């Protein structure tokens, strides 16, 4: 297939094509409602969304909501990371514990975190904590499972060597287990970061805890369609930034790692 593209003329650089694609998408968003193909009440033209966004950006409420969302996401993700890494190394490092935990983990993991929404509401009301519960629960499993994979991947020879040199358990973790598990930890971080954002927004949308999700729900119920789209675009951009940061962090902390190319599927 590649042969068909190449050879005839120099292809345009990838970033330029990407820009053209984005511009085309924006143009469609602008033209389709203007041409009356879709009702403007449902899909306002892109320029309307932009002006709604500009109006939003002028209010303190918007920045407050953005801050709340980012804060909830960061706290939830940090808690999930810390718990996932510590428990993962502990469970993965002790075979007896691992054998005992496997079935429980396999059972608890697929339980959808949204099942906890009613419980969270009863316990914490529309407080930020109820969303935090969802975020931590959802992101924790992503991290834990990756760390467990990572610990299992430790070279048995290296582990035995460390043991015959009588490394203390802490040194073993630091010098043998951690370097092997780090790529998996970073994968867990990347997956967890995306899931945490999804649940953060979900919690705000459904439970009504403060943040961008609640602003979207408010805009929807008050019929401010253009603002709603503007907020969705902002949430999407936050998602893009989160992805980019997670991926950059992964690449940065694994620059030294020989197996960076064999990422876990």
């Amino acid at each position, binding site marked *: 297939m590649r042969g068909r593209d190449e050879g005839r003329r120099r292809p345009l650089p990838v970033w330029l094509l990407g820009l053209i694609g984005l511009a085309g998408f924006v143009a469609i968003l602008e033209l389709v409602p203007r041409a009356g193909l879709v009702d403007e009440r449902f899909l306002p033209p892109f320029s309307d969304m932009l002006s709604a966004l500009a109006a939003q950006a002028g209010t303190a409420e918007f920045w407050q909501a953005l801050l709340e969302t980012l804060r909830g996401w960061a706290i939830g993700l940090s808690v999930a990371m810390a718990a996932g890494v510590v428990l993962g190394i502990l469970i993965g490092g002790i075979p007896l514990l691992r054998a*005992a935990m496997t079935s429980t983990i396999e059972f608890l993991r697929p339980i959808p975190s949204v099942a906890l929404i009613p419980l969270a509401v009863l316990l914490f009301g529309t407080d930020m904590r109820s969303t935090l519960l969802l975020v931590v629960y959802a992101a924790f499993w992503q991290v834990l499972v990756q760390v467990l994979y990572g610990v299992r991947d430790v070279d048995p020879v290296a582990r035995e060597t460390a043991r015959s040199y009588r490394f203390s358990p802490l040194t073993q973790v630091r010098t043998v287990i951690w370097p092997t598990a780090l790529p998996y930890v970073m994968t867990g971080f990347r997956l967890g970061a995306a899931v945490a954002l*999804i649940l953060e927004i979900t919690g705000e949308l459904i439970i009504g805890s403060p943040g961008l999700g609640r602003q979207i729900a408010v805009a929807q119920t008050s019929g401010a369609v253009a603002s709603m789209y503007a907020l969705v675009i902002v949430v999407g951009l936050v998602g893009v930034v989160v992805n980019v940061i997670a991926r950059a962090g992964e690449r940065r902390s694994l620059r030294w790692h020989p197996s960076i190319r064999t990422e876990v599927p």
Partner: protein
Amino acid sequence: MRDPGRGLRILLLPALPVLLVATWWLTTADSTNFFWPPLEQILRTFGETWFTGRFTADVLPSLARLLVGYLVAVALGVGLGTEIGSWRTLRALVEPVLEFFRAIPAPVLVPILMLFAGIGNEMKVLVIVSGCVWPVLLNTVEGVRALDEVLRDTARCYRLRPRSRLVHLVLRGASPQIAAGARQALSIGIILMVISEMFAASNGVGFTIIQFQRSFAIPQMWTGIIMLGLIGVVLSVIFRAVESRALSWYTGLRMSQRTKG
């Protein structure tokens, strides 16, 4: 740090779950706390809550919407992904837009799609499709792009017809990636199934649970949480069974490569 023996492992497998359930049972046995009713009471209400009409009235419609939405999303994702993955220019053109769509947390699509499709079944299926399609699509693109160069050339040398080339080379080569995307999509699909019903619905599991919570029917609410958990677990077991069947050639290949190296 020796691995525990096989017998011990089989013994340990149910040990912790039994222990956890027992702890829950005992600590709540004579609980008078309104929010944490005794587990015994929850289990007693489970049967009468879900199996006296609710199963067909709420659970099955939810599952049907999930199934339809999920299958449409997988088909759409694989179809578009194969095309986009095979054409370099097309891929470069649409990739930033796709990345943006993937980054939008799917639940915010619920209020948007409500505008277009009301609050009926169409909206819910549409929400599930539009949330599930991105992981499948992007993973398919990755999988198609990373096809083995030698296999690709071999297929060209043997002049495989486009159809068999698609089935035997492209789809099969990309299938591990597609499966990874489909697995992500499944958990997103379950979330969206519940959320679209919590947001606006007249039936479904998510709707019922929220009704219980709002009317402070606490034991019933707990049975709902358990029900959702069971749905999640059963679906993931089914998925894994299908995946291991479809990818048995791949796991075999990986195993042989690993033992060789």
